[in-house]
């Protein structure tokens, strides 16, 4: 194919991904240094980014009887002590001001009667500190950030541009190569720093709450260039999702007082150290326990034969009937609408079928407490990043705040870096971009008879679900790792129906599948190497069913093998400042512990 010239653009900082974290980073740079040129690249229009789907809220210490210390301890114990404690301390300190900042930008937070921002209860949080905008919090945050960004002319957007590779020269990031989706044309955007803010990778699992775009692109791009992915074995299941589609019923359903019932109509969580069962919602107890515990309880109920069965498999009931129609309309309008439209169920009249589905990737691109990767000029923020606040299990409503707090940090850090270096040599960048383009175009030129894209993708999500799900074991993980290696081979032969360039979503989906395979391998191999159970990573094989701080109070680091082999897993220490590893307690035990703490 005759190579057309690659169109070139130049910026000071590139931000890859225009969801909550990317937009917050762009705003941080634009406000700090109006002369800095920002290239904001996204494969969808910014308001389509998956931040839009977050429902419940964003945590920040707000009430006078709450404290930064309490938020810190909830987060660290929720993360099963695998959090970077200095980073968590920074996070909780800056959470509230970021929520206020968003309010100043116009976010329609729900209000108390006297006009202040209202807070609601959330799983694993000892005190109500979750700001919310009805049950469309992520939607409102994203639109507020996007609309505010329009104010700043220094932010040049590349909407609907698909990034195929990073351009790395002289030991630092110098730009990215992206395809304009509408034309299929390549563009080289050169810059002095890059922030990756591309979100998670939940689509590697069959049952997931994520949008189709959540394919781990940024994680894989950094990983392929030698940046390790940290703690990838920790994948969060959300306990209340819709059978079949995996669509999410927010944790706020339980914060507002919803019950989880098994096939006998029994609030089974009381059997798993989360009780006693009280009629009113109590923080850190029963339905307001952390997500990993609730999802694991579902698995056990299934083993006991106490789940219900429907066309899409097993489920339990989320009972909201006692909240009444008025409260459902006022506080959970989107949930009511989802249940009515998709299931034909009015939650005021009937219980809603739910099951756990993959929701969030705790791990991600290795980042220090200031979002920098171990590659000069590279920063990351949001779900794609492992800055270290979630540990082995994320608490609901910490991630929306994370977008803001670390989006801002990433913006400021990347700007500072960009101000200290120059642009690379254009000819060298051009040569690198040519090579990346050839690799990206290769699938369009294949001949032969390989598998269909969907066949490979379905097989990927099936093997991840089966071997790397809520509970794992060495045999299940080994089988998944082997299958992933086969799929990687098959990927190189996969055939496309579509050879055109304008809006060829089949081609882009194949490139995404390549990213997904990389991320899935990092997840499965890290899970196999972690021979213990901690937070969202639970193993069933002998010797691995308990937490093992002596051997595994460590972060896993997955390194890509350029030769195409399995990732190499290494370990790094966890920063512990003031909370020594203890036992995670919820329900009545947590209340007793709380009394002792405050006595």
């Amino acid at each position: 194919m005759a190579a057309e010239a690659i169109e070139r653009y130049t910026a000071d900082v590139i931000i890859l991904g225009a969801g909550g974290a990317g937009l917050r980073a762009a705003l941080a740079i634009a406000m700090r240094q109006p002369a800095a040129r920002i290239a904001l690249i996204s494969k969808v229009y910014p308001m389509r980014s998956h931040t839009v789907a977050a429902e419940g809220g964003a945590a920040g210490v707000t009430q006078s009887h709450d404290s930064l210390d309490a938020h810190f301890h909830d987060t660290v114990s929720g993360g099963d002590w695998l959090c970077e404690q200095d980073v968590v301390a920074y996070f909780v300190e800056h959470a509230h001001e970021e929520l206020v900042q968003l309010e100043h930008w116009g976010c329609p937070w729900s209000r108390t009667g006297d006009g202040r921002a209202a807070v609601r209860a959330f799983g694993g949080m000892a005190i109500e500190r979750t700001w919310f905008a009805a049950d469309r919090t992520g939607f409102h945050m994203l639109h507020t950030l996007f609309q505010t960004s329009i104010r700043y002319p220094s932010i040049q957007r590349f909407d609907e541009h698909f990034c195929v590779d990073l351009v790395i020269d002289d030991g630092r990031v110098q730009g990215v190569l992206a395809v304009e989706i509408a034309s299929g044309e390549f563009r080289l955007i050169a810059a002095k720093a890059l922030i990756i803010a591309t979100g998670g990778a939940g689509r590697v699992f069959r049952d997931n709450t994520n949008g189709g775009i959540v394919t781990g692109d940024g994680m894989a791009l950094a990983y392929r260039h030698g940046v390790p992915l940290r703690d990838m074995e920790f994948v969060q299941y959300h306990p209340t999702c819709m059978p079949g589609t995996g669509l999410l019923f927010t944790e706020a359903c339980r914060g507002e007082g919803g019950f989880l019932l098994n096939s006998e109509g029994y609030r089974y969580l009381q059997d798993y150290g989360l009780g006693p069962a009280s009629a009113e919602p109590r923080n850190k107890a029963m339905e307001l326990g952390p997500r990993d515990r609730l999802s694991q309880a579902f698995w056990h109920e299934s083993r006991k034969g106490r789940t219900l069965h429907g066309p899409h498999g097993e489920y339990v009931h989320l009972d909201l009937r006692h909240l009444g129609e008025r409260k459902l309309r006022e506080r959970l309008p989107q949930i009511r609408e989802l249940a009515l439209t998709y299931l034909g169920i009015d939650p005021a009249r009937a219980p809603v079928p739910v099951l756990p589905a993959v929701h969030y990737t705790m791990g991600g691109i290795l980042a220090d407490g200031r979002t920098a990767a171990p590659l000069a000029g590279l920063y990351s923020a949001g779900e794609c990043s492992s800055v270290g606040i979630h540990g082995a299990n994320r608490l609901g409503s910490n991630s929306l705040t994370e977008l803001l707090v670390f989006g801002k940090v990433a913006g400021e850090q990347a700007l500072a870096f960009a101000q200290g270096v120059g642009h690379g040599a254009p000819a060298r960048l051009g040569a690198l971009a040519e090579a990346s383009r050839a690799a990206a175009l290769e699938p369009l030129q294949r001949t032969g008879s390989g598998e269909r894209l969907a066949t490979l993708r379905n097989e990927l999500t099936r093997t991840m679900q089966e071997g790397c799900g809520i509970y794992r074991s060495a045999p299940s993980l080994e089988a998944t790792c082997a299958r992933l290696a086969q799929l990687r081979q098959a990927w190189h032969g996969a055939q496309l129906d579509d050879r055109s360039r304008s809006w060829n979503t089949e081609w882009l989906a194949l490139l995404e599948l390549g990213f997904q395979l990389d991320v899935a391998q990092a997840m499965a191999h890290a899970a196999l190497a972690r021979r213990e159970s901690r937070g969202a990573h639970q193993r069933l094989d002998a010797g691995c069913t308990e937490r093992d701080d002596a051997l595994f109070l460590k972060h896993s680091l997955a390194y890509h093998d350029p030769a195409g082999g399995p990732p190499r897993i290494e370990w790094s220490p966890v920063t512990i400042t003031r909370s020594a590893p203890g036992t995670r307690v919820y329900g009545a035990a947590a209340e007793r512990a709380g009394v002792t703490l405050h006595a």
Partner: protein
Amino acid sequence: MSGAPAVRRPYYRRMGRWWQRDPFFRRYMWREATALAVLAYALVLTLGIVCLALGEAAWQVWLAALRSPASLALHAALLAAMVLHTKTWFEIMPKTMPMIFVGERRLAATTITRCGWAAAAIATLALLALAAGWRP
């Protein structure tokens, strides 16, 4: 950028007979057409005033014309159009008003529409009663 590349060739569809595309658009066109009926009846009345100004003979001619079968048919058609006009006019009315609150609750659009219809009905009945000789 130097000219749009060949693969960026957006296709523009035509708007010909767009009002036939959707029942909602057809209803909209009927609604708008009723404004012509309002105009037509305004002309009928204006003509009456002109005849009145011209004197007794002209006025009688106008009254006779009103009683003709053609005029009666026209009036029936205009009345039907006017009823439709009134119905749809009040249906649109809430869209043109700021939000109204009674206490803490927002007044529903349907309530505003029904109030409009009720007012129109009362006014019509009062007018008919006055024409029939009733005096308050």
